[in-house]
């Protein structure tokens, strides 16, 4: 294809995007669009899978049978989200096993929030409330992204995530209405998860490298800072209702802008964790690598068995 032909295709592609026509797997798309999506969708899938670990940490210690069942079901949902997303990435020509190996080799990223530890039961509430809450802001936007399979996966995921978010908030509410010890546990969890949750939206707009092109392609429709502000605005009244306070002395309602003003984010911490030096980065990847390595013989056995079955069937068909 000549450069001119590609230019024409790109122009037509952009026109379709501007006209809000979804891109489907067999449509022509710029290579960079494909790569950007594979990177983003697989990062999202990895986040679901790695995200199973901090919450999974409390399954064996859940305080009641009802909570144990709810937490198990939630972590299982995350595995399911991982599956849809890997499938969406496969429609773009990626392979799940390769994507997984990129994660294990440290080549692919996942949401940094999961590099923080879950230290008490209240963390399970805080993660549902704040982390899923922040994720939803982003995901609701993504239900309208330009790539069809990704947008459709997001619709399904969003429904489950908002259920998780309510469940997390309900855990916090139970603690907030409980004993002094429980209330302190809830406040401590909020103190530890608040800032990392704000960091989930990524660098400020001025610093964000991928944003402009992604907005143009409608992979993204709101900027990091817009989404972050939206999250703060909905979350503060929820914290008030719990009788808990966020650890930010600069937080205040701004009558003029109609938004909450909040203090500066510690971007040094953000980059430190992104670059691999958060409290649990090594543990998380090690745990995933262990599951992958120890599962190798199981995957090989399943393939070998399927192969044997196929051969036997073929033999039977021949002799018949």
């Amino acid at each position, binding site marked *: 294809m000549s450069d001119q032909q590609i230019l024409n295709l790109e122009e037509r592609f952009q026109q379709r995007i501007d006209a809000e026509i979804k891109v489907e797997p067999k449509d022509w798309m710029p290579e960079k669009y494909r790569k950007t999506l594979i990177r983003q969708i697989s990062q999202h899938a990895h986040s679901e*899978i790695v995200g*199973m*670990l901090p919450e*999974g940490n409390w*399954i*064996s*210690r*859940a*305080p*009641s*049978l*009802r*909570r*144990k*069942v709810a937490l*198990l*079901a939630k*972590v*299982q949902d995350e*595995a*399911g989200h*991982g*599956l849809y997303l890997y499938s969406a990435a496969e429609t773009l020509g990626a392979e799940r096993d390769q994507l997984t190996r990129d994660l294990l080799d440290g080549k692919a990223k996942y949401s940094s929030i999961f590099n923080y530890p879950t230290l008490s*039961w209240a963390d399970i509430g805080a993660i549902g409330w704040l982390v899923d809450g922040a994720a939803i802001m982003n995901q609701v936007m993504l239900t309208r992204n330009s790539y069809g399979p990704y947008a459709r996966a997001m619709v399904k995921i969003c429904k489950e995530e908002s259920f998780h978010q309510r469940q997390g908030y309900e*855990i916090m509410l*139970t603690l907030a209405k*409980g*004993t002094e*010890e*429980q209330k302190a546990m809830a406040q401590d969890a909020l103190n530890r998860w608040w800032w990392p949750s704000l960091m989930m939206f990524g660098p400020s707009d001025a610093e964000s490298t991928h944003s402009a092109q992604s907005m143009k392609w409608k992979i993204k429709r709101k900027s990091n800072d817009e989404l972050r502000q939206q999250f703060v605005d909905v979350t503060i009244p929820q914290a008030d209702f719990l009788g808990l306070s966020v650890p930010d002395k600069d937080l205040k309602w701004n009558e003029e802008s109609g938004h909450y003003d909040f203090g500066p984010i510690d971007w040094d911490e953000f980059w430190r964790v992104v670059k691999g030096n958060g409290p649990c980065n090594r543990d998380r990847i090690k*745990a995933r690598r*262990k*599951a992958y390595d*120890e*599962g*190798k*013989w*199981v*995957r*090989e*056995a*399943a393939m*070998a*068995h399927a192969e*044997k079955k196929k051969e036997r069937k073929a033999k039977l068909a021949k002799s018949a």
Partner: protein
Amino acid sequence: MKERLFDYILQLGDNSLILGHRLSEWCGHGPILEVDMALTNISLDLIGQTRNYFQYAAKIEDKGRTEDDLAFLRTDRQYRNYLLVEQPNGDFAATIARQFYFDSFHLLFLQELVKSKDEQLAAIAAKSVKEVSYHLRFSSDWLIRLGDGTEESRTKMQEGVDDLWNFTAEFFLMNDLEKEMAAAGIGVDVQALEESYYAQIQEVFEAAKIQMPDYKPGQIGGKDGMHSEHLGHLLAEMQYMQRAYPGMEW
């Protein structure tokens, strides 16, 4: 009689609880994402069954205890589960062996329990039968896949079934409580299930190209509260919140 029924239901609930707990330890660490989800499903079913049993037991006892009091606030000698279900997960083959031995028994057991004179127990059994048929299909399929997969998987699968074989005896050796409940038409005459159990096992082993273990199973004790060293650790973890923060709502 009421007290005896209460004890009997606890025994049923404890099996589901402890095995459900063990399986939940796999969540997030499974060898394949789909298998991870399937193990969690089975765990969810089993803990769901536990809740049905314990809610019923609490009602019969009528002393204001809840399902959580029964699940979290007993000491190890008061748990009545089979030794098999408290055994650690080990590798995936050991988990499948444990699951297959239990599911094979569990399904036979529930198919009898649906005929119980106790309507509530029969209803719980009827609901559980459907779930457990799926569990057995999952564990048999994997046993066959691993047995008839690679050389490595066959060795591991054989080791898994050999190691846990010893614990299958406990299903069928009836204690006084079971005899009493069976005689009253409430519980199941488990001794009568023994023959078909081992015949079924043999059938799946043949399909899996797995050898029947070459020793007579005989390890018992769990049903009477004599457990292995493993249960104490499981309970320490499972009961942590209820013990550290007594009497709170969660």
